């Protein structure tokens, strides 16, 4: 007995390690409802996180505004020239939109946009580590948020809800290494799968669009939308713009690097939308 007692600390540590590994394996494959402990801890931290996040957002904005002001005069001339171009473009687009709407009605499509939105939410925290890209939002099951709902901003797709507590939820962003979104290139309707770029250092904030058809003629500048396949994300949400296309000789598919429309560094308000109506 005394020998066992002397080794007790080591045994405890080994047992703890085994217990943690078992817990890890057990919780790895998607638990969707936050447990009671999680809920309480999250609820307690919520106001604190809200406060801290808005303060740091403010400080960040002050500093980045200083940098932006320097370029303002130069940008002003450029922007005015662009404004003229864009107004022309806008007229053309409005025409197209009207046409599009008529065609949509003909094909018995419903404009789902307004009914899709579940709730607006505020980002209150981000994953502290450097390996994953999850965010926490301040709306949960009591506001109607459910697992697998899509999260968007006016700039495009943010990610999807992976876990819901009563008053907050975890969102896996599309730049997270574990995220996979089915996407479609707007111009030539090529399908592909958008994987997060594992948030590796300088490539942070980019996605990789894989499984593009070999004969695809995608070029940098093409826009990527959600395809609606897989039934998690509603069809036609803007994801981002292709900035680079690569093809490995040995591979049967092309790969494109996509810069998401959303600036994950400056995420504040998001919308939760659902696919089932």
């Amino acid at each position, binding site marked *: 007995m005394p020998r066992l007692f002397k080794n007790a*600390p080591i045994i405890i*540590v080994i047992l*703890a*390690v085994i217990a*943690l*590994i*078992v*817990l*890890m*394996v057990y*919780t*790895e494959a998607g638990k969707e409802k936050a447990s009671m*402990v*999680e809920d309480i*801890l*999250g609820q307690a*931290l919520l106001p*604190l*996180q809200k406060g*801290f*996040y808005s*303060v*740091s*957002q403010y*400080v*960040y904005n002050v500093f980045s505004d200083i940098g932006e002001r320097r370029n303002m005069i130069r940008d002003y001339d450029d922007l005015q020239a662009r404004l003229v171009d864009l107004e022309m473009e806008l007229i053309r687009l409005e025409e197209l939109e009207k046409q599009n709407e008529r065609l949509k009605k003909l094909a018995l499509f419903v404009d789902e946009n307004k009914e899709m939105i579940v709730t607006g939410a505020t980002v*209150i*925290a*981000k*994953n*502290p*580590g*450097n*390996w*994953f890209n*999850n965010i*926490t939002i301040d709306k949960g099951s009591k506001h109607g948020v459910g697992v697998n709902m899509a999260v968007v901003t006016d700039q495009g797709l943010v990610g999807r809800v992976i876990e819901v507590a009563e008053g907050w939820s*975890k969102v896996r962003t599309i730049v997270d*290494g*574990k995220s996979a979104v089915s996407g479609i290139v707007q111009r030539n309707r090529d399908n592909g799968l958008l994987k997060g770029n*594992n*948030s*590796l*250092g*300088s*490539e*942070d*904030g980019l996605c990789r669009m894989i499984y593009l058809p070999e004969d695809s003629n995608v070029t940098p500048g093409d826009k990527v939308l959600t395809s609606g396949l897989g039934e998690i994300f509603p069809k036609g949400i803007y994801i981002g713009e292709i900035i680079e296309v690569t093809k490995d000789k040995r591979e049967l598919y092309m790969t494109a690097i996509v810069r998401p429309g959303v600036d994950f*560094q400056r995420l504040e308000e998001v919308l939760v939308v659902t696919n089932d109506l």
Partner: protein
Amino acid sequence: MREIVVLAILLLNLTVQSTIFPFIEIVNVKPDSLLVLVVSFALLAGNPTGALVGLIGGLMQDILFGNNIGLHALQYMIVGCLVGILHGKLYVDKFFMPLLVVMVANMIKEVIMLAYNFFIQSGIPPGKAFSQIIVPETIYTMFLTPLTFYGITRLYHNKFMRKKYRFRKDL
């Protein structure tokens, strides 16, 4: 009292880490202040404390942000436990020793992370992860060390933090 203070520190740290640190990223890497805290506690208080602080701090991070529960807890507990073994066996000055220990501890932490990534087949190339996450993170974290370690040292000047030692003397 002591437990409450340590818990409060861990909670505050988690809040700061998840809200303010995203805005002070350099080369897209955030420093790991929890690791510095775990190392500081382990160096100053030895083992049950070191391992426990790591376990609890890691668990809180897992619960609020993790993809699973246990990964960060495992990382920080092992780090806390290993550093805790050094307590009393190592002369710890105010500056260089904590820096060195934090550097090694962060490497150990990231080796566990690499192993995890290997087992879930995340496809992250280890070499790239090493140069783009591990090295910058370690350097950035080392910058946080002196101030944090100083803070925790000052904390241990308080009587309530040393309660256990006095209890032993009385015995």
